[in-house]
């Protein structure tokens, strides 16, 4: 039991730390992507807003979806959601818990992108440079330009080398102003997120602790059950394959013995284990024939044929589907592997 306990502990620790590791890697990737990205504002009146807001909002959305794609529990959630009810009721609380924990992990990388973008300031500067309050920051005595002309001049604020409105409003003043607003937004965003996370995390034990424990247990159970079922099927497939191949070789051996009379019918008692394993195939020609037969005519997926093998039947339903099994009341044998 101690060994089991250590293995379970390791698995649990490993799964959580693995998911947290993926979160951290995505957050770092997000920050690195931003620093590697070559931001280049178009400096044209309507394009600025589209470009700036696009860079601010589209990559986080992509990162959010990527967070779901990389999470291998998504298929488990969808399976549990879409399965027919059958004999096992569906618990909405469990589905909500699974979705919430996945969504929380997936939100980290987008939040990091938005934060880094806002603190850097280039996106907001690009997007809102045409909305700078010229009356308060700029030169009030400058001869007034038309709206369109003003917007054209202001749109070039992020591009210092082509900016031609120093008399209207000094470039550095405008950029400092916009960057200050951007950084203030960034820090407020961080504060809001951390406050929200703190409230969610700390209010939960005060109100719904019992329901939370239940949801968490059953969501882990569904995960473990799925893995165990896959393992059991894999083991079954291995045993099935072993017996199937053994039967194939035995069949070949019987056929060959029928064709070539001079081959010994049975292995001599004192030949040893190794000879038994050869299953009657003892020369190259025979082996080649066995291999060719394996390729051309694989045995049916049936270990107890009533008579001769009836050929391959990959997609044929052998028996008509039976009625729904009644709830089982008979006692079942208990196979213990512990």
């Amino acid at each position, binding site marked *: 039991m101690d060994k089991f306990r250590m293995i379970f502990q390791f698995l649990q620790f490993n799964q959580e730390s693995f998911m947290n590791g993926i979160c951290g890697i995505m957050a770092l990737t997000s920050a690195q992507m931003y620093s590697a990205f070559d931001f280049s504002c178009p400096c044209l009146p309507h394009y600025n807003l589209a470009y700036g807001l696009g860079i601010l909002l589209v990559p986080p959305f992509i990162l959010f979806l990527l967070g779901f794609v990389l999470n291998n529990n998504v298929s488990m959630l969808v399976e549990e959601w879409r399965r027919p009810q059958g004999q096992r009721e569906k618990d909405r609380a469990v589905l909500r818990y699974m979705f919430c924990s996945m969504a929380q992990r997936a939100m980290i990388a987008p939040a990091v992108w938005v934060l880094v973008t806002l603190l850097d300031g280039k996106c907001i500067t690009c997007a809102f440079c045409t909305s700078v309050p010229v009356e308060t920051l700029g030169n009030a005595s400058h001869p007034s330009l038309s709206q369109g002309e003003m917007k054209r001049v202001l749109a070039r604020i992020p591009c210092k080398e082509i900016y031609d409105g120093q008399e209207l409003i000094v470039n550095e003043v405008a950029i400092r*102003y916009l960057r200050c607003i951007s950084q203030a937004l960034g820090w407020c965003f961080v504060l809001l997120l951390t406050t929200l996370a703190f409230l969610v995390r700390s209010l939960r034990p005060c109100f719904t602790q019992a329901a939370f424990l239940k949801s968490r247990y059953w969501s882990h159970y569904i995960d473990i059950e799925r893995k165990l079922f896959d393992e059991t099927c894999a083991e079954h497939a291995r045993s099935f394959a072993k017996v199937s191949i053994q039967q194939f070789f035995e069949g070949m051996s019987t056929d060959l013995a029928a064709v070539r009379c001079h081959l010994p019918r049975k292995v001599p008692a004192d030949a040893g284990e190794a000879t038994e394993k050869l299953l009657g195939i003892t020369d190259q020609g025979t082996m080649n024939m066995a291999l060719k037969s394996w390729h051309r005519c694989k045995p049916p997926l049936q*270990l107890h044929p009533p008579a001769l093998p009836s050929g391959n039947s990959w997609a044929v339903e052998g028996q008509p589907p039976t009625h729904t099994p009644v709830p*089982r009341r008979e006692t079942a*044998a208990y196979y213990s592997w512990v």
Partner: protein
Amino acid sequence: MDHLRMILQYFQSNSESVMNGICGLLALASIKMYTCFDFSCPCLPWYNMAYGLGIMFVPPIALFFCGLILNRQSLVMLEEWRRPQGHRKKDLAVIRYMCSSILQQAMVAPVIWIIVTLLDGKCLICAFSDSVDPEKFVGFTNASPVQVQQLLAKVPCKDDELMRNNTSHKAVSRYLCCWSQALGWSILLILIMAAFLTRWFRPCFNQATLLQARHWSNYIDIEQKIFEETCCEHSQLFAHMCILHFFESMRQEIKLHNFSLPSEGEGDLLPGITDQDQMNKLLKMWYYEKPPLDVSQVTQR
């Protein structure tokens, strides 16, 4: 017993060292964030104060909440505080102890941010440059009050064309930087003195209560971990029995409909599923009709 003791020691030391590690990481993250952050004072009369004080106080609040969120013990403490009494009395001393240790750990990163900010000086220069008394500095005497305000507001921006050759702004900068650093070092000194005195004199007061509180807070933490671990083990066993029961009932069903009984030679390895159709049926049944979450019949044997 030895195994259990070793495991318990591992949990106990692991939890504390994990928390100290997280605390240290947050402190380093705090310093790194400040050095990476591109401080850019707006150099406008009312915006300076808002920006400077905002940068000094908003990130520490966020770091404080992060410290609380990342601390596993905060959840344990909240659960212990809010649980119904049941058969186990609640000890407020334990809850107070846990709360104080959580708060101490959460305060490290914010305090480091504030101290680094003060020692660097940029925030205070930005926030208070337009609040200094212009009479103290040469170069501001010939301007009107509004102009003085504007000039003082531009002091933090060294690259501004008005400030480039102005020596008075350097004087103002130095003055504010000096105050900022003095404040930073004073706060650091006070905190370290407070920590030293607390640690030195705490054993003189209520040491027995402290030992009890610390023991039971560790106990609650370990109990929580072992409960989660036991639930994990239990669900593993539950799933195992559920699946075996499922395979066995498929075998029963096949027995009902097949006249050729499976040979007993394959034994435990192939529980009655011996051809493709049976396996497909089993897999279909698994999807369309999962077995109920009830293995009481199996365990009653």
